């Protein structure tokens, strides 16, 4: 029931936001909805809730993890949006709030839908709701970005739809299992037609891979993240990609359950490594901070599928990593947003030496550097380490070696830029005397930073259990 409630809440909020004409109330709606969303999700953690629409909507462990991530990120983004809309002229505040809430609805739908086609609908809707936000600046560059994003992800999502149909085809009519229901598919996976299922998986991988931004399907990422307002980039890199991963994870779970591991795992590992390599190549000598973060997102998507492909502790690691990466990325993009607001540019050259002008944001950026590169004691260390140890346990030693090598090179790239931005020689244009950074603009990132730090040293019991259960769905286990 709660799942349906979440859906209605966010969708209704979106409608309301579109209806409202004054910016003030719109912000209020944003705030109220996000708080309500967060609290309902909190309730979900208290125990399993009844499914809605005869089982089409339900919250399982996998969905709950992502849902929580989405909800938290959204809350952070909303607080940020208040400050953002103040700084920027509140152009299209209506579209802005409406699409934000629409996006929340779409992602929620993805997380709670147990019906693959419904999940697909949610997935497509995320694209459609985020596109206007990407175009928020209404200039040539953002136009180009949104165009590329639309075409590429529509293509991908089309493939995903085909994948859904193929799964339905693979499902025998005679069997009592309801069509395209995740858990029915899981339980009767052995009865599925393996040939059709393989085909389905190939298309699912391409489709959701495009949405996740796995190389070489990632081309839209740097442009979109680079041009979209930072808080939109935060949502995309934190929530959207995670939902895409959820979709892929559901298909993967079915395929594993059907005993097609030996078919699927190599694909996942290959995708992961390719993404890591490409990300590495583009991170080195990157000159734009937001594009850098986009490629880092490619890297982490690669890590996710890698962990999935490795299985065992790796699967556990990659589910935990979704959480960590989402939070860290959101935090980094919001922080970057502050930098961009300060200088009006996201080119590293223009951002150098902001420690004086924007101390809090600069410090956050430094934290982000170590968080996003998987350094202890941040959450990403735990998950990445789980993935690495999974690789060693499952006898993918060379994968581990390659992974660590690439990670070290990536660190050089990211570290080089971020240290330059934080400590580098001051650039003209930035006012030297530190002005008080608006609380709205730093509260969100600060909270996210705190979360990613806590996740590095302490995992609450329920979370641990949920993660373990989710890992079990994906044929993995807690290390």
């Amino acid at each position: 029931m709660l799942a349906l409630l979440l859906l209605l809440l966010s969708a209704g909020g979106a409608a309301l936001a579109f209806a409202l004409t004054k910016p003030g109330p719109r912000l209020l709606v944003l705030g109220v909805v996000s708080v309500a969303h967060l609290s309902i999700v909190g309730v979900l953690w208290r125990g399993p809730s009844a499914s809605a629409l005869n089982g089409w909507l339900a919250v399982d462990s996998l969905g709950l993890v992502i849902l929580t991530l989405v909800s938290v990120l959204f809350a952070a983004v909303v607080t940020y949006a208040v400050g953002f809309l103040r700084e920027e002229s509140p152009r299209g505040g209506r579209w802005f709030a409406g699409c934000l809430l629409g996006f929340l609805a779409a992602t929620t739908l993805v997380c709670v839908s147990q019906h693959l086609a419904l999940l697909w609908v949610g997935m497509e809707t995320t694209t459609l709701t985020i596109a206007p936000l990407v175009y928020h600046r209404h200039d040539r560059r953002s136009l180009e970005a949104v165009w590329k994003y639309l075409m590429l992800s529509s293509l991908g999502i089309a493939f995903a739809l085909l994948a859904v149909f193929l799964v339905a085809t693979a499902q025998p009519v005679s069997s009592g299992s309801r069509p395209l229901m995740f858990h029915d598919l899981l339980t009767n996976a052995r009865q599925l037609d393996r040939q059709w299922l393989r085909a389905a998986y190939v298309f699912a991988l391409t489709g959701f891979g495009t949405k996740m931004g796995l190389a070489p399907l990632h081309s839209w990422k740097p442009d979109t993240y680079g041009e979209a307002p930072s808080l939109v980039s935060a949502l995309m890199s934190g929530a959207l990609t995670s939902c895409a991963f959820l979709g892929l994870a559901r298909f993967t779970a079915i395929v594993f359950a059907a005993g097609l591991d030996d078919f699927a795992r190599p694909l996942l590992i290959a995708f992961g490594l390719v993404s890591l390599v490409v990300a590495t190549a583009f991170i080195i000598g990157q000159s734009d901070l937001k594009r850098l973060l986009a490629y880092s997102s490619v890297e982490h998507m690669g890590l996710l599928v890698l962990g999935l492909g490795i299985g065992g502790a790796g699967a556990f690691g990659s589910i935990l990593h979704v959480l960590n990466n989402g939070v860290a990325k959101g935090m980094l993009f919001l922080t970057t947003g502050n930098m961009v607001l300060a200088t009006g540019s996201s080119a590293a050259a223009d951002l150098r030496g902001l420690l004086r002008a924007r101390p809090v944001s600069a410090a956050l950026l430094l934290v982000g550097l170590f968080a996003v590169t998987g350094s202890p004691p941040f959450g990403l260390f735990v998950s990445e380490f789980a993935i690495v140890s999974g690789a060693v346990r499952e006898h993918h030693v060379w994968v581990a070696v390659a992974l660590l090598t690439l990670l070290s090179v990536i660190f050089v790239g990211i570290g080089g830029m971020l240290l330059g931005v934080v400590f580098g020689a001051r650039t003209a244009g930035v006012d030297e005397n530190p002005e008080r950074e608006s609380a709205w603009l730093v509260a969100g990132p600060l909270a996210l930073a705190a979360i990613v730090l806590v996740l590095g040293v302490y995992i609450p019991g329920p979370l641990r259990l949920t993660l373990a259960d989710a890992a079990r769905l994906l044929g993995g286990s807690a290390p």
Partner: protein
Amino acid sequence: MTLLWIGLGSLVLAAAVQLALRGGGRADRLFAILVLAGAALGIATAIGVLRDGTTLTATIPSMLPGGNWALGLDPLSAAFLIAILGVGALSATYGIGYMRYDEEIAPWPSHAFFALEVAALSLVVCARSVMPFMGAWELMAIGSLLLILTEYRHAEARRAGFIYIVATHVGTLALFALFATLARNTGDWTFGALAQGTREPSAARTAVLALALLGFGVKAGFVPLHFWLPPAHAAAPSHVSALMSGVVIKIGIYGLLRVVWLVGAPPPWWGWTVFAIGTFSAIFGVLWALAQHDVKRLLAYHSVENIGIILMGLGLGALASAYGHPALAAIGYGAAVLHTMNHALFKSLLFFCAGAVYREARTRDLELLGGLARRMPVIWLAFAIGAAAIVGLPPFNGFVSEWLVYRGLLQAGQSADTLRLAVLGTPALALVGGLALACFAKVAGVVFLGTSRSPRADQAREPSALLRLPAIVIASVCVAIGVAPPFVIGVMLRAGGFVESVAVDPGSAADVSRSAWQVAAFALVLLVAIGVAAFLMHRLRVRVSRRVSDTWGCGYAAATPRMQYTASSFAAPLLDVFGAASGVRTHRGPTVFHSEPFDLALDRAIAPAWASVRRVAMRLRRLQQGRLRTYLVYAVATLTVLLGYLVVRGGA
């Protein structure tokens, strides 16, 4: 254990004080008190552990992968803890005075980071399971980065910090692999549990030992992984250099010892590798030090040298236990730990003095200094003691540990098996000693003796007590250990024996400690002899006339300070002997002789390698030309490839 926690707590509190009060005299006083008190508590605990040979443990429940967190304090970590807290606290106090010279930057953040860094270091040696170890490890790394970046306005510092953090992160990733390998078949990541699967030979064990060399080697900074060390030590404030050179790099040594403790007697190949690395680092470290003109870079290279000596001891220990000589193994490990301790002492002392010179004369360039002995006698005395100690001259602490290493090597030479080849280390060690003597004769002579080579040197005065006292304290400890080694040697052998899990038979231990007493006796004899000689000399001198005049110029009248022997020319003959390996580019002109050093690893290997990596990456960037149709083609191509895979694997 509680005492230790309280101690660390007061370190954190000290940091909090600085952050809360944003510096100022009151904050500094409180800071110093808290740090010193905390260190005292910790050291007291550690000494207790070393004396009784007991092991304290504690456990923190955790839901993270790897289960509960284990912490503990055993003789090995106790030995390091003493060095960490002792040097750390003194450096912190020194730092207060040191930072006051620079009005540009607010010192309080760096003071806070310093206290936290010391706490993190202590945690590293107390961690007994993967998660807390890695956490403390990286906190330490990040802390030292922030400390190196204290003067981040100088490009030099930024570059140094970047090189450092990259190097250390690569090391951290190696540790990822190391622990992942150790934890490959257990969910319990406490060191005790990890050890189980890895004590008997296996591919995993080999991997672990190799990874330890990489992961901890970067931190220890032996050749060729030393490249981050000189820039970092040069760019950081002197008290930070003291901490890093005295303690932080030693954590690498600690890691190696801890791994040996984990996996048991290592195979011969590992022992020989460590031994060889140690020998090379010792020789080249001191050789490259000889080529430097920047006091702090020079000292940094000497850290490489001493890490080499420590590794020779460590390697000897590993070899001895590999070939089954537990007693000798204990000596080797003990020597390593003891020299670690000694180096922590005299190296931080030397950095204190170098820092005082730098602050007073506002330059680190040897060629601009000179004649400071008359201007800052206390610092000069401290430096002289430090120099004699690092060169290994009796009766100072450096001699004691080097003597122990030599003794072990000679003893190895008498064994019947391959181990006896280790005796070849003695001449190498002697060469190192000779080169070190040359190098410190150069520094002491050029900086403190003769006449000043630039006006900068003339403005130098004796620094404030905050800078002098820590130096005096450490100097006196150096002398104390040198004169009365038995006490320290005893406990160090206990630490060493702890690493070598096989029980050391009391006979040999007693033998060693007896000879330790004899070393003490000899030191005493030497001191007495000096006393007597001084007395005789005095008697001779008072009986004759004495007058003061100019230095004899060999018939050449107008001698000027510029005619003094420069550091470059002093080192030239030795560097010539070693030719290309000496890592120095020399310019010989009719009137000028100048040499500029470069780092063989950083400037000749790593930088070019990185450049080529970049080139490859740049080539790959052409994939992203901005044309949507190309991207669509990528997508379709990917799909096609996957479909191909489907066709191939589909049948199966």
